């Protein structure tokens, strides 16, 4: 797979509790991205954050405030693929934020000999 040097970075801001039909939404999104043929996806767990309805700060530092931590799914691919994936995301996300920004891919190397 080859990524163009000018690509798009798709970011989906969610939280741990976000679900789609009982499954963690971030998992569903990553699987959907894979099935859609996107180059890759990474899920990141935030250490601290706030947003959404409650506006309360969530932090890993204090156990009682560590419920429902923020999560971010990041995907980089060409604009046509990202654009075609967005309607699918719209059906999945009930609460969250989706951003798209232009990005430069400096290096994208895949080990062709790596085992699956």
């Amino acid at each position: 797979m080859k990524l163009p040097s000018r690509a798009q970075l798709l970011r989906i801001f969610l939280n741990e509790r976000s679900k789609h039909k009982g499954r963690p939404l971030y998992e569903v999104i990553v699987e959907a991205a894979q099935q859609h043929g996107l180059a890759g996806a990474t899920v990141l767990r935030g250490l601290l954050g706030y947003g959404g309805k409650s506006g309360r700060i969530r932090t890993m530092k204090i156990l009682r405030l560590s419920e429902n931590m923020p999560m971010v799914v990041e995907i980089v691919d060409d604009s046509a693929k990202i654009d075609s994936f967005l309607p699918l995301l719209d059906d999945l996300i009930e609460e969250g934020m989706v951003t798209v920004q232009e990005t430069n891919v400096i290096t994208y190397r895949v080990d062709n000999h790596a085992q699956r």
Partner: protein
Amino acid sequence: MLQKLILLGIAGALGTISRYGLAGLVQKVTGAQFPWGTLIVNLTGCFLAGFLWASSLHRLQLTGEARIIILVGFMGAFTTFSTYMLETGELMRNAEWVHAFWNLFLHSSIGLIALFTGIAIGRHL
């Protein structure tokens, strides 16, 4: 024996729910900088443990079994050492050394003060 285990379980459940509620309320008011919720819960627990222990020995007509159910069941679930250590550990991992020190110090020092205050009140009330 079975009745004791059931009562211990119920007391434990009440202790856990009380801790969850109180810690959450305190943390909501104090914000996300310092684990005040766990500290307040543990200090409250130290005071109550001292008070109930002293009261049960000197004032209240409590059986040994009732004492165990309250002190082990309820108080054991109400207070938490593991969360205290987890939160101190997280403060240290974030290099918040001053906060980590204060968490350790306040738990130990005020905890003992709260315990002996509870004992004193429990004896004389």
